[in-house]
């Protein structure tokens, strides 16, 4: 079941096109890098792929079929700033189970400690929070993961810890990953191929 974006165009209202005729295909198990200068719509493109935004032009399909808008979206997005992606008034246990209960093996692999589940988001570091966001995005129905500058705010050790876990999971589940990053060295290390958005 490949993820296909065909002829995608996007603009706000009747404004100028941010991008047009953009195509992307990702096979299961494939890791694709997406790079390009800032302000060219990388994040918007990711939001379209993961169903947050409806494109005025073009369509996104999985296995040739349009994505059903009900239930868990098979393409999940992990954002750059984990502290903005969790509810500050929920304890981490509730945050984690927001989209169904992830299995224990996944938590172990990501290095999430049981004791963290009883804490508030403000009591964890960015790296610890991002592990939760990754775990939350990796529900049973996730076929593709989009990492939009997922580890940009984290130090090298935490970055390596999280990516090792994510790649291990992707390999086991035959899951595709789209890596959006400005860090050429990281993209080079992780990806099978790289696409530049102009």
């Amino acid at each position, binding site marked *: 079941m490949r993820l296909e974006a065909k002829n995608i165009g996007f603009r706000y209202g009747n404004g100028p096109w941010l991008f047009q005729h953009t195509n992307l295909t990702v096979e299961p198990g494939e890791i694709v890098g997406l790079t*390009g*200068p*800032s*302000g060219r719509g990388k994040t918007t493109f990711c939001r379209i792929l993961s169903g947050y935004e409806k494109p005025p032009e073009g369509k996104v399909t999985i296995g040739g079929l349009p994505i059903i808008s009900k239930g868990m979206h098979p393409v999940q997005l992990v954002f*750059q700033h984990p502290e903005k992606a969790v509810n500050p008034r929920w304890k981490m246990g509730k945050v984690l189970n927001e989209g169904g209960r992830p299995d224990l093996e996944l938590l172990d692999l990501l*290095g999430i400690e049981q004791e963290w589940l009883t804490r508030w988001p403000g*009591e964890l*570091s*960015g*790296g*610890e929070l991002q592990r939760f966001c990754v775990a939350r995005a990796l529900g049973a129905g996730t076929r593709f993961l989009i990492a939009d*500058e997922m580890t*940009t*705010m*984290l*130090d*090298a*050790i*935490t*970055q*390596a*810890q999280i*990516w*090792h876990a994510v790649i291990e999971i992707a390999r086991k589940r035959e899951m595709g990953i789209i890596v959006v990053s*400005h*860090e*050429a*060295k*990281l993209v*080079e*290390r*992780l990806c099978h191929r790289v696409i530049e958005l102009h």
Partner: protein
Amino acid sequence: MPILEVENLSISFNQYTAGLKRKNIQVISSLHVTLEAGEILAVVGASGSGKSLLAHAILGILPDNALVSGTIKYNGELLTPSTQASLRGKEIALIPQSTNYLDPLMRVGNQVRTSVQTGDATLAQRAVFKRLHLQQTVEKMYPFQLSGGMARRALLSTAIVSDAKVIIADEPTPGLDPVVMKEALNNFREFADNGCAVMLITHDIESALMIADKIAVFYAGTTVELAPVEDFTGNGEALRHPYSKALWRALPQNDFTPIPGSQPHPSDLPTGCLFAPRCTMATSACSEEQPDMRNIRNGMVRCMHAT
């Protein structure tokens, strides 16, 4: 004489726990940093290691519940809250970490112009926008109309057009594409070459290596190592502290192998060496008391086993 000297700095926050009960949380402990004129010092470390707090302490913009001890000297003179207030924005400029620091109700061109101290503000602003590849239409825009990278460049512009002697850049690079990043970093280099000083706070070691002269490695609120930039090479053999070595090896261009565990939370710091629980070289002596900074091979390190 160093232009900026931070000695034995400790910062703790007084926080309410339940009801009227309060406790002190130590976030920075016995930290030493010096910044020489003409030099770029990169401060690297994990988030939560106290990098931004150091910047805020130098500028005197910590929140009211912060308790600060230790000394900060600028040009040999001790900084007090009133001297800090008169220096910041003029002699010492901060490039803040978050793009939320832009005024949401003011056009960005105007915001950049407010920090110009001599000469034609509009010309200075247009020149710096051009240099950082921002189109002229951007000056009429409000912050919400900018992408992350554009907002970041607007913040950079503000510091570049000011005539500051010291620039403290707090994570200026995330969200910038390589071309703009290189331009921004070159700007810092030129700035330092003209006799000013730059403190580049970042977790991006790669960009630090491109322009910095020295690198200070922070861990859990203290400096664990101060090393010349040339030592960050190969497998990290030239580095002194086990944490610096681990950080270096975890980079994608090196081994990409992480060490287990994470940095301790400020409310739960280990006694003794702060890195001991994750260190493979740790002995029982390490957990007894925090080692002092020592001079080793043209650098400094806070580890009793370092050679």
